[in-house]
């Protein structure tokens, strides 16, 4: 282990690398970026596609990244990261990190082809998907990672539909299926776990991927001061999970002895408040099925 690497919150630098931006108070995504950069440090090349973080961080002349940073074309964050790494290598740059932050849409939908290409090549980049479960920057539209029952502006809940009628795309296992060196899921509600995973990714010689749950108070409909609580509860109620994939093995990092009530988690959020017991039991059954498979097949 590199002695400079952060393994717990006490080792975290006080230096800020992403601040002064215009994100909403209580923004989960900005916390995911801020914490990761505290681990990776000044010598980072950061790339973001058009998303909330680039929208709030690159407004000339009020630039919010202290590190080098670039906005990538929406579909091509991973390709831009690959180009940065190839250029840096060809120019003989050393001791730097190439890290990308893309949202759920930028990762699981429009960006999945470029991401797949980069993982396939094994380019030495760190790709962090901050998942807030919809296209938030454009005004809360459904993405491939929007969960069942979530009301978005393109999956309205009404007499005929409960909001989104599909489950989340399984990005973590899609990424792992490439045979990636290191992949992990995380939540900003469990920051030490996230920091450790960013540290591990930073030491990876090839592509690494972290999928961090980053609640959006504006899009999910809860008060900004409850972001961390919601992010933690997503894991505690079993709708999200903390896991790693390395050496061709999946490992569950946190195995709750019992789940906190799904209904409580859902009802704290405006996007789910319309759901009835039938929809909630669909969500619970899906959760149980997922956990059954994880507990059976993954180390814990």
């Amino acid at each position, binding site marked *: 282990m590199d002695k400079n690497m952060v393994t717990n919150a006490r080792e975290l630098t006080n230096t800020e690398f992403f601040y002064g931006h215009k994100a909403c108070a209580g923004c989960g995504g900005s916390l995911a970026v801020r914490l990761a950069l505290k681990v990776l440090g000044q010598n980072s090349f950061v790339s973001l596609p058009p998303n909330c973080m680039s929208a709030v961080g690159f407004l000339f002349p009020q630039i919010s990244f202290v590190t*080098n940073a670039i906005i990538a074309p929406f579909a091509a964050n991973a390709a831009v990261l690959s*180009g940065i790494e*190839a250029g840096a*290598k060809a120019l003989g740059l050393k001791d730097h990190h190439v890290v990308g932050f893309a949202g759920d849409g930028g990762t699981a939908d429009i960006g999945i082809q470029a991401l797949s290409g980069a993982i396939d090549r094994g380019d030495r980049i760190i790709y962090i998907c901050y998942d807030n479960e919809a296209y938030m920057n454009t005004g809360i539209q459904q993405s491939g990672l929007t969960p069942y029952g979530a009301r978005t502006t393109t999956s309205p809940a009404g007499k005929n539909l409960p909001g989104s009628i599909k489950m989340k795309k399984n990005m973590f296992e899609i990424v792992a299926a490439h045979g990636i060196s290191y992949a992990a899921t995380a939540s900003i509600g469990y920051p030490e776990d996230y920091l450790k995973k960013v540290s591990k990714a930073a030491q990876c010689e090839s592509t690494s991927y972290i999928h961090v749950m980053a609640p959006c108070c504006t899009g999910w409909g809860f008060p900004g001061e409850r972001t961390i609580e919601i992010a933690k509860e997503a894991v505690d109620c079993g709708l999200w999970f903390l896991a790693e994939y390395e050496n061709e093995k999946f490992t569950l990092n946190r195995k709750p002895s019992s789940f906190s009530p799904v209904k409580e988690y859902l009802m704290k959020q405006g996007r789910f408040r319309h759901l009835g017991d039938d929809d909630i039991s669909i969500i619970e059954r899906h959760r149980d099925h997922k956990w059954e498979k994880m507990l059976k097949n993954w180390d814990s």
Partner: protein
Amino acid sequence: MRMAGRKIFISGDEAVAEAVRLVSPHVISAYPITPQTVAVERISDFVEDGSLQAEYIHVESEHSAMSAALGAAAVGARTFTATSSQGLLYMAEVLPYVSGARFPIVMMNANRALAVPWALLSDHRDSLSQLDSGWIQVYCEDAQETLDMIIQAYRVAEDERVMTPMMVNLDGFVLTHTYELVELPDQAALKSFLPDYSTDNKMDLDVPKSVCLAAMNHYMEYMMKQELDMRNVESIIEETDREYGDMFGRSYGGMIEQYMCDGADAVLVTLGSVTGTARVVVDSMRSEGYKVGLVKLRFMRPFPKAEIIEIGSKVKAIGVVDKDISVGYEGIVFTNVNSALSDLDRVPQRLNFIAGLGGRNVSKAHIRDMYMQLLEVAEGKEKEKIQFVNARCEYNG
């Protein structure tokens, strides 16, 4: 001093690859598409055998090819990519991105018709659809010019007064897959013509910065700067062409080449490989006493407006050969030429010949017919202004 180089028998695609080996980019990121493929295959061979020290990124699409080139250019690397047709359109989103970011990426485009209907042969609808992307566009007549222009493209694009990407176009198959004797410039001499690339317009670990940012309140000024800089490119192209000619013995006339235009009543304006056929026709018609000339349009952006006006002031009729069409209007080159000519008090007669779409043959006989029609309109006769050449059905325009 003129430096003689080694001559080898190669195709247009191979000429691209040889030029890339000579300029030695740090990063090559490319996705294969017919008829560009042989270029990227040879470049891969050179990377494999170590004669080209570069990172070759096997991207999974043209969109990623240009995006990875963008990433590499953003840390100050010299970069190269190559594409054609559908591939160019797939990367279209990233073209204004690169030109707006002022990254001097050089790209080869093997001109090929756009689908549908599918046609693998050459026309110019692909690159001409990207005229407004902010890239410099040059069109080559043969493999030798292609090799020379890839080299010159880096010199022009990386000039700190320019810092604009450049697309080097050559006709698919007609040039990419035909062989000719090509002279390679001496590599040591090339070093002094094309110095190593260095720029402040990059992300830098010592001087960190944000690039490709949002400038809502300054967008207009950014675009103005881009346009004003582009206006200076013409003189830099000409100075580069002259210096290259002095060093390596080949120059191409800068923005345009005038062939037998002195005393001409009628001239044709051509782009790319059809110029070669037109030269032969001009030679034979001149020997018969016809006053005809040829204008090889080398650059479409920046557009050689002053040169076109000057020619327009001298001749009675101008024909434009367009291997493209802007459906619903006319040939794209014709529109551009007409726009320049409108500055004249007395505008010559003009005809637009839509030819070679999807690679349809344009023969010497077709070109001779274009000249005969131009000589007739020069004498006051009426002709259909926009014509389809060598089409198998009637056009009632």
